[in-house]
């Protein structure tokens, strides 16, 4: 996460306006947010009691939210919603650079 921050600051300082760099910056922001989210999710998981999960046939079927932390934990389980845009923006950035050259 600190690496992503460093990268983001570095690219921000360089003020790249060439095509591809805005997409790369977006990639960094999304991957940074993803990092924050997954880190938070992993950390909160330690404090979620199994009782908050409803199970059926050994599988989770529902989750009871009592607080914002529970909400944040539930959202962290949906981290692909950040990871996929991040990878997509990386794809776009690379494609633009390739086409540009």
């Amino acid at each position, binding site marked *: 996460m600190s690496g992503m921050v*460093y990268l983001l600051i570095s690219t921000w300082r360089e003020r790249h306006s060439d095509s591809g760099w805005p997409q790369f910056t977006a990639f960094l922001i999304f991957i940074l947010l993803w990092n924050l989210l997954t880190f938070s999710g992993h950390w909160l998981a330690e404090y979620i009691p199994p009782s908050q999960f409803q199970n059926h046939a050994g599988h989770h*079927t*529902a989750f*009871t939210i009592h607080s914002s932390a529970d909400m944040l934990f539930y959202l962290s389980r949906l981290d*692909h*919603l950040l990871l996929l845009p991040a*990878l997509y923006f990386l794809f776009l950035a690379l494609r633009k650079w*390739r086409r540009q050259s």
Partner: protein
Amino acid sequence: MTVPWAPVEIIDSIGSILALLLAIGCLQQAWAWYRVRHEDIFRHYILLFTLAIVVFAVSRSCGHLIKQILILSGHEHTWHILSPFSGAINTATFFVIFAFSLYYQRVKIIHTELEDYKNNLEEMVALRTAELEETNFSLENEVTERQAIQKALETERERLAVTLRSIGDGVITTDVEGRVIFLNRISEQLTGWTQEEAAGHPIAEVFNIIDEFTRAPRENPVPKVLKHGQVVDLANHTTLIDRNGVERSIADSGAPIRDRESQIIGVVLVFRDVTETKRLNEELNKAQKLESVGVLAGGIAHDFNNILTAIMGNLNLAQHLMNPEDKILPLLEAADKASRRAKSLTQQLLTFAKGGNPVKKTTNLGQIIRETADFVLHGSSVLCHYDIPSDLWLVDLDPGQISQVIQNLIINARQAMSAGGLIKIKSENISTPRAEIFPVLDPKGKYIKTTITDDGPGIPADIIEQIFDPYFTTKEKGSGLGLAISHSIISKHGGFIKAGSNEDGTVFTIYLPVTTSELSNIPPGITPSPIKPAAGELIMIMDDEKMIRDIAKMMLETNGFEVITAKDGIEAIEVYQQYQKAKKTISAIIMDLTIPGGMGGKEAVTRILALNPQARIIASSGYSNDPVMTDFHSYGFCAAITKPYLINDLLLTITQALS
């Protein structure tokens, strides 16, 4: 609030699959971008960074898919075992990504520096290229200029070579070691070496010179020029020996060849063949010497002639006055004969001195031949056989000159037969000379042909054409003038002389034209007697020599003439005027042409003819070759008489003048 868990599992599964696909897509794009410029370090960095992301995405996606599959298949326990490994891989991968992130700045700096360097390099290359192009342009100009200079140099070199080869003098150039570099055409001719043969050879080998007299080798001028660095002239009397041993007298000089820094880089020798010039100079010197001798001889002959005139006149007069039975008469005749020989010698001396035109008189050639040949051969071991007919026609000739011709030929024959031998002399009358052999002769003319044959060793065929050339001689002490004068004398008599020779001896053939007057009336072999003029005629004798005046006066008075004398032209004119005033006629005047310090006959004749155009004036001189003597009519004289003269000569001339 209770939220369903199904969306979590669905998004996780589908998201993992999509993340896997996007990761592969990213890797493809990164790879393609990298391949375009694989030397670009930043692209390389992005490729590796993308690869780390992809590895992470693949690892995580695969992990999540495996997790979903294991949970759904009731193997949750297995997932709990694998879960730490999957997390560790993800964490490790993210460390790698972190590491890459940290190196972004450094890579970017390197990339920027490289790009800058690359850009600068292009600029530098462009700048350098421009400089190179400019240099190249300059070089091209320089090359063009050099080519033009080289062409001009080659043209100049060719012109110089052509000039050197065309120079009329020999030119040889050497390097500083004295080795031949160049020879021009004349040098090739004079040394016998060609340019190709001589190049590189030592100069002394090609330019072989010796002293003309001592035959010792001469110091070659090239080392001397190299030593002193100055122009060096060759010593006099230097002979160049060519490759074939032919020798030539040469004059030459050597000079150093210097470069721009005045350093000697070689030597140039310039020389010329002076053999012919030297020969001409020697001949000129000889001619000048002969001329000096001739002047001296002429002067002596003039004085000697005057003395001889008195001697011969007195002897002749004494002979006439004496009784034919007197015992003294043979002595006088001997003295007279010796005097005639002296006269002949004087005439030869004058002919040698001046080589003038002959003073002809009708004469018997046979008599001259006999007298001359007998005189020359007297006391020698050579015999002479004459075949001269008594009816030989008379010839108009100068007895002194023809005698000299015969004398020259007989002397040559005698010298060719030093051990003795026989000379045959034959004379004959020829009416129709063979014009094809003697084209200079008149085919309808009448000639006396005389052949003088000896039985000596003969004349070599290779020099027989040159024997009549002046100064050509095979004798050590010969002047080379004898046959040349003989040829000249015969030619001036309208005749022709030729030589033939073989191993049996030499034959000289002389053709002389016979006299054109009274050919049949004059008995052959007899000198006509003068018609004795009427006594009492008044004759004036003008001569600076008193003894001549006296003897001439005695001769004439003895034969009935009245004689008056004058010592020079002025006195003669004065006397003539006096006699004119006194109405006395001077029948003839005998005038000496040359009066030292006074008026001679040549000037006086015009003055007297001005007084009396009918005056009969006779030229008298010891110089038989004087133009006035040979062409006296043109100068106003009516006759000419050569001193010394005898009574008969004098009477005959006066008779001709008065007739």
